[in-house]
């Protein structure tokens, strides 16, 4: 009887400890949210030649979507390896479609292509990511991100095991991508990165990533192909890839203020229409994945964080004169208040924990003492 009671008490103590620590952790996670200050997008179509029309259509669909969700052209780096809209083989000059009914012209009236033609190379892509540009590089070809920027990197083209082909001549390997992201991390060029890749064996491209706060999604796994879709007999070519189409079907419903989670995008992928198994992974992601919104990457949120944080702000002098009050009003910034209140809560929690642990140790000691008394103490006299 005694032993069973001890067991129960020990288990209950353990549960109490675990619960306490868990609640603390949850609070810390919620504190790190709302760090995003700007949204950027790097959209790359790496393929050349007319029969790769669909890759440019893929990239432009994402460009169109991202622009509609509020990322301005100045914060989108669009790289298109070939000119398809004004290609002599295009039956409808100035247009690129991803839909069979030709309703939406993805090329539109207002498009800014930052890197085109031969400019789309592995070197330039790496330069964009790492920010190590040549001196003469113009502003619109640079990625001015900081530690508060969320970056969407979308790449499409032909790929294979741990590589993605650029321009039919060179390729970017998984190591290069991983190292570029790590360099960005060390230079504090991003807050979070979302990499979306639509190629054959896309998942292999992420194998070497080792930097924190990176979410990746690829159209297919190792030894799997990605397939095209919307074969258009009018233009005479496939218009879009299955994986991008599936993503677009989900993302089209998103509005700038939507609360749809990124995870539900991943869950929406099904093998039946895509013909491959999309792969997703989060590398050392510090937020709870269930709280990551789609608009954290595809939309635009621009918040300003004052640095260094002001401790207080004087009210305008005119107001004081008008009100004829000579009191210096100190207004704490709301964020400051929040942080202080959070700190206080944390401190209280810590104190509570200390008290609870102290009490629990006393109870433990008592129990152990009684146990020793009953089992050992009596046998000593013999």
């Amino acid at each position, binding site marked *: 009887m005694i032993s069973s009671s001890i067991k129960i008490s020990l288990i209950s103590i353990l549960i109490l400890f675990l619960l306490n620590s868990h609640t603390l952790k949850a609070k810390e996670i919620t504190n790190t949210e709302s760090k995003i200050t700007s949204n950027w997008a790097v959209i790359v179509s790496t393929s050349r030649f007319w029969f790769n029309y669909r890759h440019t259509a893929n990239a432009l669909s994402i460009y169109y979507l991202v622009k509609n969700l509020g990322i301005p052209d100045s914060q989108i780096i669009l790289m298109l390896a070939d000119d398809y*809209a*004004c290609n002599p083989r295009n039956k409808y000059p*100035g247009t690129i479609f991803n839909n069979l009914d030709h309703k939406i012209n993805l*090329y539109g*009236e207002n*498009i800014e*292509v*930052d890197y*085109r033609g031969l400019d789309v190379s592995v070197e330039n892509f790496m330069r964009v990511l790492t920010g190590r540009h040549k001196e003469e590089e113009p502003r619109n070809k640079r990625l001015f991100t900081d530690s508060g920027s969320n970056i969407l990197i979308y790449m499409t083209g032909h790929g294979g095991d741990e590589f993605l082909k650029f321009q039919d*001549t060179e390729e970017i390997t998984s190591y290069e991508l991983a190292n570029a992201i790590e360099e960005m991390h060390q230079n504090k060029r991003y807050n979070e990165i979302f990499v979306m890749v639509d190629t054959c064996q896309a998942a292999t491209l992420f194998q070497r990533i080792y930097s924190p706060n990176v979410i990746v999604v690829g159209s297919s796994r190792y030894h799997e192909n990605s397939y095209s879709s919307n074969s258009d007999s009018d233009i005479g070519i496939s218009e879009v890839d299955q994986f991008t189409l599936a993503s677009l079907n989900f993302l089209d419903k998103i509005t700038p203020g939507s609360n749809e989670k990124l995870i539900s995008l991943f869950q929406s992928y099904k093998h039946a229409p895509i013909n491959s198994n999309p792969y997703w992974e989060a590398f050392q992601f510090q937020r709870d994945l269930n709280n990551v919104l789609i608009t954290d990457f595809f939309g635009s949120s621009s918040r300003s964080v004052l640095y260094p944080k002001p401790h207080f702000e004087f009210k305008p002098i005119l107001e004081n004169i008008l009100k004829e009050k000579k009191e210096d009003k100190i207004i704490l910034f709301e964020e400051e208040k929040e942080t202080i209140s959070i700190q206080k809560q944390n401190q209280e929690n810590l104190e509570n924990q200390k008290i609870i642990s102290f009490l629990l140790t006393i109870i433990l000691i008592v129990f152990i003492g009684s146990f020793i008394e009953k089992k050992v103490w009596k046998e000593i006299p013999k």
Partner: protein
Amino acid sequence: MKSFLLLTLFFIFIIITFSSSNSFEDESYSEKLIIQPFSKSQILFNFQFNFEVHHLNKYHDFGFFPNVIAKLMQNHNVFQFKLSLTQGRIKFEECSSIPPITAPPGAELYATFHNQNLIQEKWKFFVNELSGIFCASLNFMDETSTTSIKNFPFENFMATNNTIRSQNSRYSALHREGVCTENLTPWIKLLPCRNVHGLATLLNSEKIYDVDYHSLSVSSVDFKEKMSLSASLVFILNPQKILSQPNWSFSKLFERKLMDSSCSLAKESLVELYLPNYQSEEIKIKPEPTKIINDLNSQSLYLYDLKKSEFPFDLSVKFPSNSENILSEKFPLKTDRITKNLNGIFGVIQTTIENVSPNDLKFIYFEYLPWFIRPFIHTFNISFSNSESNLNMNFNLNLNQNQEFFEIIQMIPNTEYSNPFTIEMQINLPKQTVVTLSYEFEKSFLHFTEYPPDPNHGFEIPSALITLKSTEIHSQKDQQNSSFLFKENLRIYTEGLLIPLPVPDFSMPYNVIAISSTLFALFFGSMMQILFKRQKENQNQNQNQKENENENQKENQNQNEKENQNQNQNQNQNQNQNQKENQKENQKENQKENQKENQNENQNENQNQKKIKRKSKSK
């Protein structure tokens, strides 16, 4: 106090209004659309948007003059530049009127700088910034594809200091550069009314790229105290091809019309429609033009002032049946440029220019080749021939120059990986005469990594440029009679060339690696085998010896073993006997022990019984 405040406010108001009105008056903006027949069934549309700043103020702030261009020119010390992005080529030999702005296929950039120091550096930054603004890959206009023109082909800007500025000029062309909506977008952003109001509303990107020729251009001059910029878009289309009928209208061609009003910021906003002379009843033009000027060298001009006309404005033209846009005027020059491949490495470039006009012409021929095409200057041959007058003359560049026919203005030999070959010469071409320039060249091998992704397509050589001075043509006739509407120099571009360079086998490095590694493996393997086989043989010999020894030993051992076995058998027998004896002894001992134990047990039982008895007693 109140009155004082009011006064100050009033003054501030006055100052603001005056300053703003001043800045507004300093700038002017005008838009114009010129529509003219181009060839049998083609029409040329020329959109022109002109900006001018008459007095630059201290702060360089502008009302609607594009700030991007102004800053760009001021930062890089550019006096003037002209950029054009073109798709398609004007077939000069077919055209019945000269396009006001001509451009070669691809991108062409010409710039002059205020002074000569650090021009190369400035050009690099200028080109990159411009490529950023207009979303074109102008950054390929690097040192290796940039040259200078001495004789300035774009004369309309040139006011003073012609000779000085020609030294500070840079010229470059990219034959392969495309033009599409991404170039039009930033171009439209230069206009103060964008494509919301004014003539630019007609520019429907889905329609204006479905044309035979399309050219977008921007040119600007900075006189320090005043600036001007003209943005123009020229395209040539065939209504017969698009609408399958010669009658056209804005709404049919562009699926758009001018809806609300003209751009209110524009000082003037005009549409000029040139048509061959018809009887006014034969041709139906809607709406009614504000002014008609007939008998303009077999052309009539229908002028629309959009400030006065009604909206929506949809210009439509209905031609009488069986009519053609043929003009009597012929283009003065016929050009042709070809390349011949002698064998894989050598080739010939030949340019023929024919003077079709009834007058002698004086023009400037300019040509530049990228560094990987190396011309042999000793093979340069210029021949003049006239079938009528039996003129046939050949010249070499080596001989004393005959200034009667041609004069070399400049010639820069090419150097590898740095500057292109450039030749610029003045040619006096008599009427009905053909001049042929030809030279041999050698193709150079590029580095493995310098080839573009599609090297088998060949390398494009920019067009040669022929400049006819405006005075040259206008002196021939009276200016009023001339059908040539251009006011600047007439520039004619020849075809560009496509030269296939010797292309290496791009799988070569892998083959080399594969072959060399197999060779290495073979060599190394055989060497190793040779080196180690001897030792092995030695070892084998030793082993054989040892084996022999062992065999001997084994035989001996066998003999010994047999002896041993015999001995063992004997021993075993002995042992067995011993064991039996031991067993017997053990058995005896065990029996004794068992007896003792039994005795003890019995004793214990007895004791227990005694205990129980005691307990029962106690109970």
